């Protein structure tokens, strides 16, 4: 490259130049010995060192440069009169000069320079420095300040996704006298991306008062770029110390997940954020029914250019969002959801057939068939994963629907509430998301109605007037955790307990942990809105919420701290259609246990503890675990085998063993819902078809544990 040629040329000139400088330096030093106060001579020694240092670094001779730096530092102080010229100094500097010469020779392929000698010299030079070392900030050494270096990135590279920025740039009035042209900066800025520039001229005086060489204009800029905020700062690098510069991010790609549409902030909001209008003035202006912009201008609370600038911002962000949306839509197609359901069903059947194929292949022991089966299994599994992912949707759309709910509820109840969200991009099966709507509405309603206190109450309690409802979604293994938390009044366990006792749900003398008490909230018949909201609790139809969530094979959990707030956590399966299951056999019957609930399988050897009744205990490695004998539970006839298996399951910390004849193995299980006939069965959540065509029931393990624990 030409530029590198420039460096190479410079390099060869540098050797020549350094040679000359060193020769001059020698002469100057010798003269200085006779005239130690000659400022001119001192200056030329300093300059020679300075040039060698600077140019040396320029062309990559770092050792030369940093060694010379030491001498330069000393002579800078000599120049300032802080160090006298002595014979010692001159001797040392002459030695340094020879050393530099040797170093330069070495870098041109000569004898290597003597490093120890260099250290001796620098050591001795440092002794000359006044106490505390260095004057000035001379010894910032070689830590090149990356930030204050030259603005180098030029056009710069993309540093990720496109964001929009709001920039206000107000140069110092004297900017023209420093040779800067603000229009150049604006041009440079618009090269970074989609850019709207609005000049603000309100500071401009009349021709009689104007200083013709001063800059009165300042700018509002809205910029959408993928180059990052540092690229924007780089544009202003030479003027940022002397200008007013505010840069804010106003839109990011994931921002639209939260918004239902491509809508953006309201005009008033933008003006307040920019500091162009006071919140109070805005409130007052909003009271009149006219267009806010007009009112503000009429009342001279803001000038038209500011309004225009804010409108431009609105327009800009909307356009950017629309474009982004269009881009997203372009790369996708719409499919009617029944088609998708059908696809899932077909894949389900394929999975079933494939399981049969595997069985046949193994039993025939035909290598060719086994090989084919393995191929089919691989493809089926991929197809299944793909199909499932099509059904996955981000939960953000649901979240954003609640904004309106929160806003309206807060207004109706005269409370101040904001909703924040997190993890809007988290994906869940479409069906799960649809069925989640009602429970979430319920829970949010509860948070605002019973959780968040009225503004005055909050203030008195030392909390911000505005309460927060936070919605979050996060993956956790095969589940998604959805949390609804508020910073409201929280729930007093004692109040709940008293209420539950009163209702006869628990007996008064029973010891209960807070967790257990809170679980009473979900008990059917615990609450109606009236009774509970009177005692500050919640529980409006919480049993309904619980039933809903459980129908999605999920679970619900509530924690609360009095005065601090309440968090409800929903744990939901990623998908409803296919699960990983553990296949087990009792007699001729097959059962599937969701693998996510299975902890381990052990043999049940001892029958000594085998009393009668439903609840029995097994000792597994010293731990006592209650177990259920499924053969008995399901009234299956026939002989019990000598060795049975206990499948240890765990849900939310509660463990229970389920005894079966034999554990067959893991199995991809396509869930078929069962008709109304089976609705009353607590232990069964569905059925599946096995490889050989027989039906296996899917056990509802959480429910079984629950009834075992409470029953």
């Amino acid at each position: 490259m030409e530029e590198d040629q420039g460096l190479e040329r410079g390099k060869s000139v540098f050797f020549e130049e350094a040679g000359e400088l060193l020769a001059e330096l020698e002469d100057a030093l010798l003269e200085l010995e006779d005239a130690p106060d000659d400022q001119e001579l001192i200056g030329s020694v300093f300059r020679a060192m300075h040039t060698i240092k600077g140019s040396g670094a320029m062309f990559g001779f770092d050792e030369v440069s940093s060694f010379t730096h030491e001498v330069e530092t000393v002579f800078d102080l000599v120049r300032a009169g802080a160090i006298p010229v002595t014979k010692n100094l001159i001797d040392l500097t002459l030695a340094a000069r020879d050393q530099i010469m040797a170093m330069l020779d070495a870098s041109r392929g000569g004898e290597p320079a003597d490093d120890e000698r260099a250290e001796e010299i620098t050591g001795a030079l440092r002794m000359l420095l006044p106490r505390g070392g260095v004057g000035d900030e001379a010894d910032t050494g070689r830590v090149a300040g990356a930030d204050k270096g030259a603005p180098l990135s030029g056009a710069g590279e993309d540093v990720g996704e496109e964001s929009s920025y709001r920039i206000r740039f107000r140069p110092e009035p004297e900017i023209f006298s420093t040779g800067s042209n603000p229009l150049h900066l604006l041009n440079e800025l618009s090269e970074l991306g989609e850019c709207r520039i609005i000049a603000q001229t309100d500071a401009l005086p009349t021709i009689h008062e104007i200083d013709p060489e001063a800059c009165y204009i300042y700018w509002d800029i809205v910029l959408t770029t993928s180059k990052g905020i540092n690229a924007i700062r780089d544009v202003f690098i030479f003027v940022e110390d002397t200008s007013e510069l505010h840069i804010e991010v106003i839109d990011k790609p994931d921002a639209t997940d939260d918004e239902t549409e491509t809508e953006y902030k309201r005009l008033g909001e933008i003006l307040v954020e920019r500091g162009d209008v006071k919140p109070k003035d805005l409130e007052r202006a909003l009271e009149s029914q006219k267009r806010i912009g007009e009112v503000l201008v009429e009342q001279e609370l803001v000038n038209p250019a500011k309004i225009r600038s804010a409108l431009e911002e609105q327009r800009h962000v909307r356009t950017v969002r629309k474009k982004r949306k269009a881009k997203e839509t372009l790369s996708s197609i719409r499919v009617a959801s029944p088609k998708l359901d059908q696809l899932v069903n077909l894949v389900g059947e394929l999975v079933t057939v494939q399981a049969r194929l595997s069985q046949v292949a193994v039993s025939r022991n035909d290598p060719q068939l086994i090989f084919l089966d393995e191929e089919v299994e691989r493809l089926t599994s991929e197809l299944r994963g793909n199909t499932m992912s099509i059904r996955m949707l981000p939960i953000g759309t649901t979240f954003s629907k609640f904004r309106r709910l929160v806003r309206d509820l807060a207004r109706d109840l005269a409370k101040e509430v904001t909703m924040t969200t997190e993890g809007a991009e988290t994906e869940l099966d479409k069906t799960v998301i649809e069925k989640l709507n009602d429970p979430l509405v319920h829970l949010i309603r509860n948070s605002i109605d019973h959780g968040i206190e009225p503004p005055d109450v909050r203030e008195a309690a030392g909390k911000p007037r505005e309460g927060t409802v936070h919605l979050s979604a996060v993956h956790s293994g095969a589940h998604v955790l959805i949390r609804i938390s508020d910073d409201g009044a929280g729930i007093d366990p004692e109040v709940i307990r008293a209420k539950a006792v009163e209702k006869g749900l628990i007996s008064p003398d029973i010891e209960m942990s807070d967790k257990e008490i809170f679980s009473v909230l979900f008990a059917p018949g615990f609450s109606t809105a009236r009774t509970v909201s009177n005692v500050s609790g919640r529980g409006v139809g919480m049993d309904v919420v619980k039933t809903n969530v459980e129908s999605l094979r999920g679970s619900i959990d509530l924690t609360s701290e009095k005065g601090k707030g309440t968090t409800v956590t929903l744990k939901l399966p990623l998908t409803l259609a296919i699960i990983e299951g553990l296949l087990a056999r009792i007699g001729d019957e097959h059962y599937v246990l969701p693998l996510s609930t299975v902890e381990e399988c052990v043999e049940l050897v001892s029958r000594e503890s085998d009393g009668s009744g439903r609840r029995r205990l097994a000792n597994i490695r010293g731990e006592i675990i209650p177990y259920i004998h499924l053969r008995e539970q399901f009234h299956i006839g026939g002989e019990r085998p000598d060795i049975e298996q206990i499948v240890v399951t765990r849900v939310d910390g509660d463990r229970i063993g389920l005894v079966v004849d034999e554990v067959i193995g893991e199995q991809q299980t396509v869930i078929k819902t069962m008709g109304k006939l089976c609705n009353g069965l607590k232990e069964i959540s569905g059925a599946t078809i096995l490889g050989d065509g027989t039906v296996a029931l899917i056990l509802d393990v959480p429910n079984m544990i629950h009834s075992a624990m409470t029953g």
Partner: protein
Amino acid sequence: MDKTILTADDSASVRQMVAFTLKGAGYQVIEASDGEDALSKLDGSPVHMVITDLNMPKLDGIGLIKRVRSSTKYRFIPIIMLTTESQASKKQEGRKAGATGWIVKPFKPDQLLAVVKKVLR
């Protein structure tokens, strides 16, 4: 339109590198070996930008900047100073005297061009 840049530096090697780089990018270059030399060369054909070292004999960089800023012809011309990072206070002084920007030595040719492009457009 070819723009003319004056580069003032007492180091011939740095001047050489600057000049070569700028000429390669299509600029006309006038070289000066110190501040006074630079001033006299500014009197000749029109110059659009000045790149100056700070430590120079006769008239140093700060002095040069001040003189240029008080001239009628070049009061608003972009001036870039070449500094080393051990000269933070010098840089401030240069800014006060009216420098447009700076480049920290050592720099690479493309860094130089980026800055020139930035202030000259």
